[in-house]
């Protein structure tokens, strides 16, 4: 079972501290950008639970991100509700239900089929928000700054997400919490089963686990967390549009997971950081950002299949005395097709 080595935790803790103090001296623009990275990192982490741990390559994960964002927007813009104590439960339930329904259809298939079906269902939800007049259409909706989610106790406002600094720290706290939550889940009995499923689904089934149920639950957990990330994104930009559910968004988050290193929870954080910074840098130099992005993705696939995290652990292994090969996380063990 792949384990995160202690030094990595130390580095992560240092990273969290660095993020916590960054707004004190950082440039306003980059503070905003880091907030974006953190939201994206939570989103990518949720996908990593599927791709990197449960071995389910979902190409429609943006659907849940979008459901979370739209649920937030609907409460704010349609019902005038800004209370986080109401918005959050609604968002989480909406995303979970969407994930349950889509998961129920998709989980019964695997491989190429699973990829295509998740993509197709995400497209369906895309059109749901795009075409139905209730949802503001293609241009999306701007949320009033004053209506953004806040948490109040009586008349005292504790958290007001329309404040950029508050949002920054809320996002940071959520990132740390999401990381902790997924770490706990992966160490639980449930976590052990889904990790086993990725490595060798048939064997797990033969041991007496109802593989489908575990996959479905993993799918729902991941979808719910993605919905939560969507809530944060809607609060961050005060803007929601169908493009949040587009298949390019699903592709992008998959790129982040792969780039950072799937099967590690810190990988997606690294991936989000690198990709956003890369975009910021490249789009300042050339208008052909998408060409650079395309070539970059191809190169990562060919030369960095285990992502930055994989690169780090390879380097670490070179520095340490050789250890027995622990098997590549990339390849799946194939069941003998005996007759």
């Amino acid at each position, binding site marked *: 079972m792949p384990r995160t080595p202690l030094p990595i935790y130390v580095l992560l803790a240092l990273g969290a501290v660095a993020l916590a103090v960054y707004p004190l001296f950082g440039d306003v623009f980059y503070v905003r950008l880091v907030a974006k990275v953190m939201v994206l990192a939570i989103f990518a982490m949720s996908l990593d639970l599927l791709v990197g741990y449960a071995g389910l390559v979902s190409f429609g994960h943006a659907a849940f991100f979008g459901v979370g964002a739209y649920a937030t927007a609907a409460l704010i813009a349609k019902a005038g509700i800004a209370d986080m104590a109401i918005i959050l439960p609604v968002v989480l339930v909406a995303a979970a239900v969407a994930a349950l329904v889509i998961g129920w259809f998709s989980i019964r298939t695997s491989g190429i089929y699973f990829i295509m079906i998740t993509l197709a269902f995400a497209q369906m939800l895309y059109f749901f928000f795009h075409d139905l007049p209730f949802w503001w259409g293609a241009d999306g909706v701007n949320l009033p700054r004053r209506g953004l989610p806040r948490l109040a106790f009586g008349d005292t406002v504790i958290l007001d997400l329309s404040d950029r600094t508050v949002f920054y720290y809320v996002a940071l706290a959520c990132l740390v919490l999401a990381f902790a939550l997924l770490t706990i889940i992966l160490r639980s*009995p449930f976590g052990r089963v889904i990790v*086993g499923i990725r490595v060798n689904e048939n064997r797990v*089934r*033969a041991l*007496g686990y109802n593989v489908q149920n575990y996959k479905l639950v993993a799918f729902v957990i991941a979808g719910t967390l993605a919905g939560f990330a969507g809530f944060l994104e809607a609060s961050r930009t005060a803007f929601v549009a169908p493009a949040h559910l587009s298949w390019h968004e699903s592709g992008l988050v998959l790129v982040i997971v792969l780039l950072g290193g799937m099967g590690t929870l810190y990988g997606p954080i690294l991936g989000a950081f690198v990709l956003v910074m890369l975009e910021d840098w490249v789009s300042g130099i050339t208008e052909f950002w998408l060409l650079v992005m395309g070539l970059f993705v191809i190169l990562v696939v060919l030369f960095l299949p285990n992502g930055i995290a994989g690169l780090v652990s390879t380097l670490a292994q070179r520095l340490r005395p050789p250890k027995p090969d622990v098997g590549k996380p990339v390849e799946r063990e194939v069941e003998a097709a005996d007759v």
Partner: protein
Amino acid sequence: MSDVILETDGLSRTFGALVAVDGVTLSFRRGQVHAIIGPNGAGKTTLINLLSGELPPSAGTIKLRGRDITRAKADEVSLLGVGRSFQKTNIFQSFTCFENCWLGAQSRLPTSMRFFRPASVYREVEARARRAIELCGLTHRCDTPAGAMSYGEQRQLEIGMMLATEPELLLLDEPLAGMGSEEAVQVVELLKRLAADHTLILIEHDMDAVFAVADLLTVMVNGRVLETGTVEQIRASKAVREAYLGDEEGGGH
């Protein structure tokens, strides 16, 4: 003689035009070691896959302790106390030996849909996993990643993982496949130990091993049961000799 634990009636499985298992009717008695032998392509592995729920049969029925499990899935069959090991080593290479068995042992929790307590607090699971490791003789390899163990040890772990699920009936698909003679001796010893308190259904090519442990033999050819009997009966059977053993013995056994 003990009672019947597992029985099949007219069990068949086809792949397109190919009939891999053809009308197999067999019964397996509790406490016995029942070996299934036959030349390559006789349908032995397919038969095991049908019994373990890995594959749905095309026709026929399977009953476990008198209960129909023909349509049961692999996980359901496992939960009913049927363990199986695979011909091709089918362990979690990146897990340690202990973690492999842990996953087997954990399957006997009422549910593994537990999300917040670390797996390591489940003492009974740990105890079960350790028992299985001890039984298959890998205690010294407990924390070694499975992928780093020798081939023979991996084969033992294959069985250990199954034992961790505390099955009553074991379906063993060529446990000796690809082993050197010394390793094979160890596994034969293990099989003998297991035979003491388990029912074994065993596919094996190593005839010495089969004759050493099996109470009853079934010979399969072309998907069909040719004959079932004790070691002596099978050795004496003319039909078996012609179809199968003849070649082997002629080959220098």
